[in-house]
């Protein structure tokens, strides 16, 4: 009986751990649809359509097939809305969930932090969090690697990011 109970508790704990949501999922679920928040979601299905739109450009096609989904959650920065600073809250919780710092950019407009979630030497998620009153979270999921991120720059004309290819992990 005791063995059975212990086994049951173990199975339940492992299953609940497996079904646990990431802090990014939780933030999106909590704030989407609420007053003062805007959510944009582009699904994996839409990306398959987008990948088929420009079949001549192989780099573009590679990028579109590698990206699984894009989620954006932004908070309005106006006097009518009390800011929640959800970006700061999210940044506090991300390291515990296995997300690692990629880059921190600070300028006169505030700071932008890039964090990545690695799964089997691949970047499964890239999260960009811009802080301040009007926090914005951009989550790009898929089978990303540094090359893919670098190819974002090709599409937008940023040459420096190509050097990321050569960075040893």
């Amino acid at each position: 009986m005791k063995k059975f109970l212990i086994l049951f508790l173990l199975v339940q704990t492992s299953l609940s751990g497996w079904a646990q949501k990431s802090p990014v999922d939780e933030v999106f679920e909590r704030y989407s649809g609420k007053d003062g928040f805007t959510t944009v979601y582009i699904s994996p299905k839409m990306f398959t359509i987008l990948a088929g739109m420009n079949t001549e450009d192989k780099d573009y096609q590679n990028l579109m097939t590698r990206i699984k989904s894009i989620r954006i959650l932004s908070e309005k920065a106006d006097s009518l809305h009390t800011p929640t600073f959800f970006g700061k809250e999210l940044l506090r919780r991300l390291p515990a969930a296995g997300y690692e710092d990629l880059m921190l950019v600070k300028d006169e407009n505030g700071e932008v932090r890039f964090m990545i979630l690695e799964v089997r030497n691949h970047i499964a998620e890239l999260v960009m969090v811009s802080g301040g009153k009007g926090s914005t979270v951009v989550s790009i999921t898929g089978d990303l690697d540094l090359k893919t991120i670098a190819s974002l720059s090709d599409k937008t004309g940023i040459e420096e990011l190509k050097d990321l290819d050569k960075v040893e992990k």
Partner: protein
Amino acid sequence: MDQKDIREILARYYEGATTEEEEFALAEYFSGHDVPGEFEQDKEWFKNRRSNIPEPGEDFSRKLLSVTTMPVPISKVRSQRVLWVYRMAASVALLITGYLILHSLRSEPSYMNDTYNDPQLAMAEVQKVLSDVSLNMKKGTESLPEIKRLGLAPATLAPFTRASRIAEKSIEELHSHSKMTDTTIN
């Protein structure tokens, strides 16, 4: 009853072969006062013996049967029932957990509906997001070329280091030469 009879009955009594009447006669004999010294111990035995063994009551056999014919003790039945309740509860809990996990995996949150149904609009949004991400990354990687230059610096300085080492060696040789000439002059 003479002493010989008493001895004979007592012998059978201790073997458990006496009748009720004989035992009654013995008890009566030993309760008297004129008991010879050789029967002193037997007299003590019969004095302390319970003469009145209660007869079993009418419902004795019923009570005995009710106890002996009961297949399983009540406590055991109860513990087995509790075990079944636990098993049932555990199974139900397992089913509920399984259902909840499947439900949470299958059902998607409300925001997980495509914001744009038109691929062109979705494309415009994706490009906007990617350029936003790239622009922010550009700000962070602007200093990369400078770091690269710094990385080249030790290689650039290498000939100078070699030259300085050669110079040091030559100076040392000069010093030893001058010392040698000094000693030969003196």
